């Protein structure tokens, strides 16, 4: 257990020490919370899915960095991601993440790791201002390090590219005179369970489209509640892959640190039903 939450504690520690260590507040030019978190794949956005917003709070001109750790404890699995991402001129994002899925087996425990390198480019619009929502295109290159289980279940490869087109918008003065974030993506992917079970399968080896949606209600500038839904294609004959959803609370005390807690429902993963549990994410703006 302690090994699983170490990344979270380390990130929190960095957040604690950061303000005295460095200060370049001039480059955190965006409105509080508009850089979001780093998702389970290391891309800027929510917890389970990326948004079209770029990680950190860079504006033009400027560069900003965000590091984050997240952990989901499900009934038979634990998913931990540690990531660093940067954005330039509120135009481009890059990210690298190391993600680890632990499976409780009887007896013992199996761990599957992957490295994800991400890129995102804002094509048009803005999250808050102007008439066009922020529209971005993104790519995630996923390198699966432990492919034995994936192969055994019928996956075709240990490397995959996910592409997504996303739009997001903060609706100012929406219902209840609150600001609401709406985000949606279309993803083209061959990933099985985000890539932990390889890419492509014996049932389908084609790129398939899936939809991802997120909404958040800002109770005030520092606190948001919301939900996410991530549709996931099913490529393997041997097992069923479920869609994922979550309900979250996010806290943005300042531009340096944010923390999110969520209830995640991941349905069936590799034959194990009713996988749900608690998600925690800590992100620090460098």
């Amino acid at each position, binding site marked *: 257990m302690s090994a699983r939450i170490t990344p979270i504690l380390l990130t929190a520690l960095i957040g604690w020490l950061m303000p005295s260590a460095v200060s370049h*507040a*001039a480059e955190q*030019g965006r*409105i509080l919370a508009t850089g979001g978190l780093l998702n389970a794949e290391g891309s800027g956005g929510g917890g389970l899915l990326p948004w079209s917003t770029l990680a950190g709070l860079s504006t*033009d001109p400027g560069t900003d960095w965000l590091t984050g750790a997240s952990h989901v404890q499900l009934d038979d699995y634990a998913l931990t991601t540690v990531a660093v991402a940067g954005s330039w001129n509120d135009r481009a994002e890059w990210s690298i993440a190391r993600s680890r899925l632990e499976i409780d087996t009887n007896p013992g425990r199996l761990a599957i790791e992957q490295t994800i390198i991400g890129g995102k480019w804002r094509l048009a619009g803005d999250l808050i*201002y102007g008439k066009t929502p922020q529209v971005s295109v993104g790519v995630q290159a996923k390198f699966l390090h432990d492919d034995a289980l994936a192969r055994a279940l019928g996956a075709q490869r240990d490397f995959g590219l996910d592409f997504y087109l996303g739009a997001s918008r903060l609706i100012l003065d929406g219902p209840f*005179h*609150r600001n609401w974030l709406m985000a949606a993506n279309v993803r083209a992917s061959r990933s099985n369970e985000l890539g932990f079970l390889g890419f492509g399968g014996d049932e389908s080896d084609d790129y398939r489209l899936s939809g991802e949606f997120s909404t958040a209600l800002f109770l005030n500038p520092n606190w948001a509640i919301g939900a996410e839904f991530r549709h996931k294609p099913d490529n393997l004959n041997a097992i069923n892959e479920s869609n994922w959803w979550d309900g979250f609370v996010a806290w943005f005390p300042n531009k340096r640190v944010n923390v999110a807690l969520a209830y995640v429902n991941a349905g069936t993963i590799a034959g194990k039903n009713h996988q749900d549990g608690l998600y925690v994410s800590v992100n620090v703006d460098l």
Partner: protein
Amino acid sequence: MRTGLVLCVLLLVCACAHTEQRSSLYQDLGGEQGVAQMIDEIVLELHADPKLADLFTETDDDYFKERLNEQVCMLTGGGCEYTGLDMPEAHSGMDLSAAQFNDFVEACRRAMTRAGVPVGNQNRLLAILAPMRTDVIHQ
């Protein structure tokens, strides 16, 4: 019985919608006095914010506050006339960045919170000001 209930609900909905329309944001911000108090806090905050203070060192605060009061009054349904420069003129030559505009928004939020303006009314005012961004930055 049922028709009566439906009518009753309809009446209530109409009444609510009507009240909502009649209560302007200007009134909800406390009218002349409330808005003036809020703008005093905003100007204080602009001078106190290390990221913004340099922009306001040569500002004539009394003139600036009068124009802000007029502008907020006009935009929020208070029925005033704004007599100042239009936004591109007022910011001409300053070449304000996207970051500085956001800093201004966040300074306004802090000031409004200090002035006791509830979050809902802060959001209403900022939603009215947000479209001015293109006329303010890079001028």
